[in-house]
């Protein structure tokens, strides 16, 4: 269940934020204005031509900072997103479903790894990003602050949450930053697979016993609105979007993607034999899209502020896993020092500096 979501993009303080840990680069202040202007012009031209920006290319500090923030949030969402689903691994009702769920949670850890690696090409480190997550200085998708109360929630997450994530992420496969775009190609393939499995899980419940059908409907009722919130605030309240679209990090507006998602879900819900908990959904002939009801943005803001149903629990579990695992990581590091020859030991950090400079 991955979700880079637009929902936190507006939460950054400003577009001029400096990326932490990126001391190197021509923007250090000593370069003459003319040289800076030439670099910026080359960058703008590359973005305009749909060329990919690569790690060694010059980029505006604000572009770097925005990408680090977004990719970190995306990676954190994969990691925190393991929790609501892992909650059901030990209770999965059949061995086949248990295997599917374990594989999915494993994929999420893998997605987190790709994304942290992609973010590291911008001159940060996984450790640094995780520290920020644990300190509450970087966010993850608001959707993962909702609890999984029944088995059907595992299906609703696959269908709706992964569905929303895919709608958001497919355009990221064309994102201007090469390492991010390439990570997204791999991730989207796996996510689509998870989404189909979630749909199929719900279908089995919907066509099952009365109790199973009711369980599926209840899950959809609880996950529908939070899934719509994954696309972020309405366009008129999303100040950061414009810059991200100009940089081709983002390709479509929040509302545009949200409408696209609703249009996809309506017929799928019908095929599932389940209803969406919104009496105002109806086809709008004139626009060629569905109209739908108003989102409760107060709830959204509360979840973002840390007051959602599981915010505290999610971050506490993440911190605890990290803290309780410290002695294991220390042991691996100590062992590596003892069993590595001095020449290899010095070579590694040197290479790292070169890569991130």
């Amino acid at each position, binding site marked *: 269940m991955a979700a880079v979501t637009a929902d936190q993009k507006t939460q950054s303080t400003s577009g001029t934020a400096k990326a932490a840990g990126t001391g190197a680069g021509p923007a250090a202040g000593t370069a003459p204005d003319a040289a800076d202007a030439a670099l910026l012009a080359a960058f703008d031209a590359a973005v305009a031509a749909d060329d990919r920006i690569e790690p060694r290319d010059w980029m505006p500090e604000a572009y770097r900072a925005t990408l680090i923030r977004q990719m970190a949030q995306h990676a954190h969402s994969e990691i925190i997103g393991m929790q609501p689903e892992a909650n059901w691994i030990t209770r999965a009702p059949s061995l086949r479903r248990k295997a599917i769920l374990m594989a999915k949670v494993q994929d999420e850890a893998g997605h987190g790894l790709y994304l942290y690696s992609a973010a590291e090409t911008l001159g940060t480190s996984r450790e640094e990003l995780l520290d920020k997550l644990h300190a509450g200085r970087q966010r993850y998708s608001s959707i993962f602050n909702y609890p999984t109360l029944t088995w059907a929630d595992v299906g609703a997450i696959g269908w709706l949450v992964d569905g929303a994530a895919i709608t958001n992420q497919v355009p990221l496969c064309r994102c201007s930053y090469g390492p991010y775009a390439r990570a997204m190609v791999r991730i989207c393939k796996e996510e689509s697979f998870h989404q189909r499995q979630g749909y199929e899980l719900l279908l*089995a419940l919907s066509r099952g016993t009365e109790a199973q059908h009711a369980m599926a409907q209840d899950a959809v009722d609880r996950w529908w609105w939070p899934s719509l919130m994954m696309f972020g605030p309405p366009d008129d309240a999303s100040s950061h979007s414009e810059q991200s679209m100009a940089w081709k990090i983002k390709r479509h507006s929040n509302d545009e993607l949200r409408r696209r998602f609703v249009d996809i879900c309506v017929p799928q819900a019908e095929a599932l034999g389940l209803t969406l908990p919104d009496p105002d959904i109806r086809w709008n002939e004139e626009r060629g899209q569905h109209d739908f009801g108003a989102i409760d943005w107060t709830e959204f803001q509360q979840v973002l502020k840390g007051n959602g149903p599981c915010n505290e629990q999610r971050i506490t579990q993440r911190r605890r896993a990290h803290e309780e695992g410290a002695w294991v990581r220390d042991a691996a590091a100590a062992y590596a020092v003892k069993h590595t020859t001095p020449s290899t030991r010095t070579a590694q950090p040197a290479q790292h500096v070169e890569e991130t400079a």
Partner: protein
Amino acid sequence: MSAALALGDDALVLSHRLGEWAGHAPVLEEEVALANIALDLLGQARVLLSLVGDEDELAYLREERAFRNLQLVEQPNGDFAHTIARQLYFSVYQHLLYERLAAGDGEFAGLAAKAVKEVAYHRDHAEQWVLRLGDGTAESHERMQSGLEALWRFTGEMFQPIEGLDAAGTTGTAGATGTTGTTDTAGATGTSGSGSGVDWAELESAWISAVTATVERATLTLPTGPRTGAWAAGAGRQGLHTEPFGRMLAEMQHLHRSHPGASW
């Protein structure tokens, strides 16, 4: 079919325990690795249980006393070192056992030949971590040693012969142990001719040597305590389990049992 049930239950129960780590591992790479091992084991369990009957009926509708797994695999995860100690003991056992089954021509030969590749990876993963924890920091050394000690008493049961995989009554297997060092060809012929026959004493000594080698390389000490608990060794195979197991089953089976006859 009690052999398929015994081996299937081992894999099913250990897979479940490893699944409990999801979201709690010390580092992301271990989230991937532990889930990977759990998935391999679950895959093995499904194949083995399907030889006996309906996999879900067997997993979800049997009570504690009807499970045939080793007590070792049902032990709670404890800390990471505890989990790794359990994994070392079991993976080395499973690897050596499946190698022998794969080399024979019994009913498990095909299955074991497939699984042995996965199990070799599990064994390597466990051994590598025993080295890192044993020869890492003072704290990790101490934790690894206590993990090994705590689970040591469950290791004796692994070598109680499993009905159907017993070499008793077959000729040649006993010869295989006796003749190692004299003529390799004679030993090999003897083993391949014995079907599923496993020489449990030979398996045990191979296990002891392998575990000893890893433990010593990791600067740890092989535990010296008894290798059985208050129950006789092999109790798990008779459906006599430890207390944490019932609780584990309650969690595992609850949803399935709440909806009798439903399909998922």
